[in-house]
């Protein structure tokens, strides 16, 4: 039987394979990484910054429109950075310009549910 860490890793890799993302991570809202693949450099800071992006965006949406945020897409010259909110966890992914944003969001939703299920967070 594979360990929880293996199952989490497999789940995230399935997201990367399905979307063609360059790297991805699942994290808690306080920025603690749960599982990550192919993120280079200072992983913990990069992931914490992604959590902050979603946190600040969420507050902006709430204060400006009284709405609730689902995801943030950062459109860059080279591609896209997604930060998607799950029930209790977040997913961030980096994808090249040609990647399908709709697929990224859809798969992010699927994998977040899967990982939250593995961690019994649902």
């Amino acid at each position, binding site marked *: 039987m594979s360990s929880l860490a293996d199952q989490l890793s497999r789940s995230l890799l399935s997201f990367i394979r399905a979307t063609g993302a360059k790297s991805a991570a699942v994290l808690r*809202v306080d920025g603690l*990484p749960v599982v990550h693949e192919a993120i280079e450099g200072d992983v913990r800071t990069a992931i*914490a910054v992604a*959590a902050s*992006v979603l946190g*600040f965006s969420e507050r902006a949406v709430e204060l400006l429109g009284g709405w609730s945020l689902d995801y943030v897409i950062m459109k860059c010259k080279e591609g896209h950075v997604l930060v998607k909110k799950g029930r209790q966890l977040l997913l961030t992914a980096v994808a090249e310009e040609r990647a399908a944003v709709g697929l990224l969001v859809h798969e992010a939703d699927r994998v977040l549910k899967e990982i939250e299920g593995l961690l*019994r967070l649902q």
Partner: protein
Amino acid sequence: MSEDQKLWEVLAAVIQQAWEMGRESALTILYLAGRRLGTRLTSPHVQAGIAPEDLAVAIVRELCLGELELIQKKPEHVYRLSGSRIADAFVRLFGQSQFPVCCAIAGILAAVHELVKGMPHHCEEVACKASGAEFCEFLVYPVPTAVTEIQIAKPLTPFDILALPPELKRTAMVMLALKEAAAEEVAQRTGRSAEEEAHLLDALAERGYLVKRIREGKAVYRVAG
């Protein structure tokens, strides 16, 4: 008001503003700032062979953050902080907090453990004086073995309850039914006092069957799984 008190209030105001702007995610900035400071203060002592808990206590004392003591070493380190200057300043300025405010101290403790033990650690403030707890409490754990609170905790099943000491069985049964409750709610069902139930719930949390959180100044326990 002393100069020290004014400085703590500046920090408390920063914490409140961060919370208003980005909730938990924004508090991560303060956690990482604490981690950075902790790394700086720990680095000169890494080779000295000092236990992380002794170093943590010394650093917190040196920074005049309050009086830190280790109250549990296994399975994970749990520290108790009496008289948190940050929490006191926060309550003076803003009243009781809805969230744990000593995130910078959590960052310091994580850094001490990380450097001394040579592997990534995370620290969470599981009870905060600013939220109405008597003391601030911090849980420190290595990241690869306990990434989330749920991974620390074990699911509570009827089979597990059978193996519990008699005094814990009834509390565990009630929690299994309620899933999430404060000591007062459990006490209503068991007929014991809320104080007694709080001790029993803590004992179940220590065994990993419950996750304890401070919500609006009150300890709330949740069954894992």
